[in-house]
């Protein structure tokens, strides 16, 4: 099966910018993969997200080289309104994404744009409100719900459109830790229950790492590192050079590896870290 996202020799420079925001990007993402994209500010993460959903070059002026294909078709070749059926985007600012007067209207808006029937809208609304636990908020207007709830609404609104690829551009950057966790809980459930391709651009690695099958590091508009999540965090030098610091647990085990104390896989979740540490202590006891 061909990859759902294929990016070949892709470069993008915004009009009047001296340097390209993205340069020589080559990426291929298989359907159903959960990808984490990280990198310092200005590394081109949002430009990458906007390139996937067609906002670039559609809404921005600049010079494009190379190709960005979704399901085998170049993003420019999709007619207006077609690409959102393939690629759904959740932006970082929950405030600016709320386009309707109640939560329910917001969830329904995208589905109506796709021309779905009432029966299908009802069915998807039920599914998505159950997944994101938004049922009690359906009647609420945007000014009566918190930033975290708004972001879950934005996520649900995109999910309800059932795109094959979901791109989340720093979805939790404006949220408190509890709201952040709730958004990632939804993503975890989505990963378990559906076959969506999810691309999450995030600074907060604690929640992202346990879910990601693959990690991509962007630095100065280029792909600096691209591999499966475990091996990705072994490249500590490259990560530090790009100003990315792994979560505490990963950094701790990486330090142990460097000292030759630990030789196993780097644990990516807190539970795995606890288990690995217990094993390590147990082994030491018998030595």
């Amino acid at each position, binding site marked *: 099966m061909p990859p759902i996202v294929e990016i070949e020799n892709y470069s993008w420079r915004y009009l009047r910018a001296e340097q390209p925001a993205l340069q020589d990007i080559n990426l291929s993402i298989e359907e159903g993969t959960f990808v984490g994209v990280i990198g310092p500010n200005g590394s081109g993460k949002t430009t990458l997200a*906007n390139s996937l*959903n*067609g*906002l670039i070059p*559609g*809404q921005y002026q600049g010079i494009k080289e190379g190709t960005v294909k979704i399901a085998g078709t170049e993003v420019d070749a999709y*007619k*207006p*309104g*077609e690409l*959102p*059926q393939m690629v*759904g*985007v959740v*932006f970082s*600012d929950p*405030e*600016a*994404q*709320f*386009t*309707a*007067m*109640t939560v*329910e*209207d917001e969830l*329904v*808006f*995208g*589905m*109506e*744009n*796709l*021309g*779905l*029937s*009432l029966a299908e*809208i009802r069915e998807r609304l039920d599914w998505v409100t159950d997944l994101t636990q938004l049922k009690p908020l359906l009647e609420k*207007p*945007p*000014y*009566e719900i918190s930033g975290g709830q708004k972001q879950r609404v934005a996520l649900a*609104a*995109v999910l309800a*459109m059932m795109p094959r690829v979901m791109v989340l551009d720093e979805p939790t950057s404006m949220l408190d830790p509890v709201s952040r966790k709730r958004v990632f809980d939804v993503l975890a459930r989505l990963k378990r229950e559906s076959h969506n391709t999810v691309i999450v651009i995030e600074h907060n690695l604690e929640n992202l790492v346990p879910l990601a099958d693959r990690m991509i590091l962007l630095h100065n508009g280029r792909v600096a590192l691209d591999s499966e999540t475990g091996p990705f965090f072994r490249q500590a030098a490259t990560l530090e050079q790009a100003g990315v610091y792994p979560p505490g647990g990963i950094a701790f085990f990486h330090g142990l590896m460097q000292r030759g104390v630990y030789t196993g896989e780097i644990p990516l979740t807190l539970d795995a870290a606890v288990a690995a540490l217990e094993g390590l202590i147990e082994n030491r006891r018998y030595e």
Partner: protein
Amino acid sequence: MNKTLLGYVPERSPIYAIHPFVKLFFLLVASLFPLFISAPEWNFGLIIFVLLLMLYSRIDMRIMRIYVPVAISMASIIFLAYVVLGGFHPEFIEIGRLLGIRVYWERIRDAIVVYFRILPMIVMMVFFLNTSRERDVIVAMRTLRIPFVVTYVFAMALRAAGMVIEDFGIVRQAEQARGFDTHGKSLPYRLRKYVMYMIPLFALSLRRAEEFSNALIARGFAFTGPASKIKRADYVLTHYRFTRLDAVLTALIGLAFSALLVLRYGFGWFTLDRSVFLPRLEDLLLHR
């Protein structure tokens, strides 16, 4: 009470059983009534009627307090325009002089007539804003089969108003954090310094516009092309049912308006000549 962008609506109200279209129809049609009524006592009666409707709808009547300054300002402006700056009219009856300015009975009468035409319209608007959520306005417009783009632009305007209010709060807090605060300062100072809020707010609005348009595109909305011609399911309308009562009320409002026109132009009702209040006021002012 629940806050809306338009005002405050009661938690529960019998008026919620009525279709939003009927409420909008009442606002649009009944607001025309005062334009065809010259005798102020009839318009006063209309105000009482709407106030009773507000009571029935369980609107917290304390809300009216915030409209008192509006009513007083309106009265002052009309009084100034008609009575003080009304000009020299030898053909009118002069009832006295105020700081050397001639005060005519006809000008006072006209000011009262105009004021009592505007007041019911304000009260009706207050009634509408305090019984309708933003969604009701959208539903009413969609029921009227107003094209989706028009309805949606209206909805976006409401949404944008909410965002501007929220952004204004952010800008204000940011400026306060930097030591700029107009609190407790004189009005001219505050007006002069208002530009300090307006410039960042304008810049923020431009950014919001870009983000908002990106969000619309991400939701598959298109103003042009085949995607813009897709038949919409109008899901929001499924929450409302236009009942027999709604049909009756709509007909009654229409009939009342027709009756008003017939009585006004067919039988000369509601005119100044038929007024009971104005001749008495005239006698009082002219010491007859």
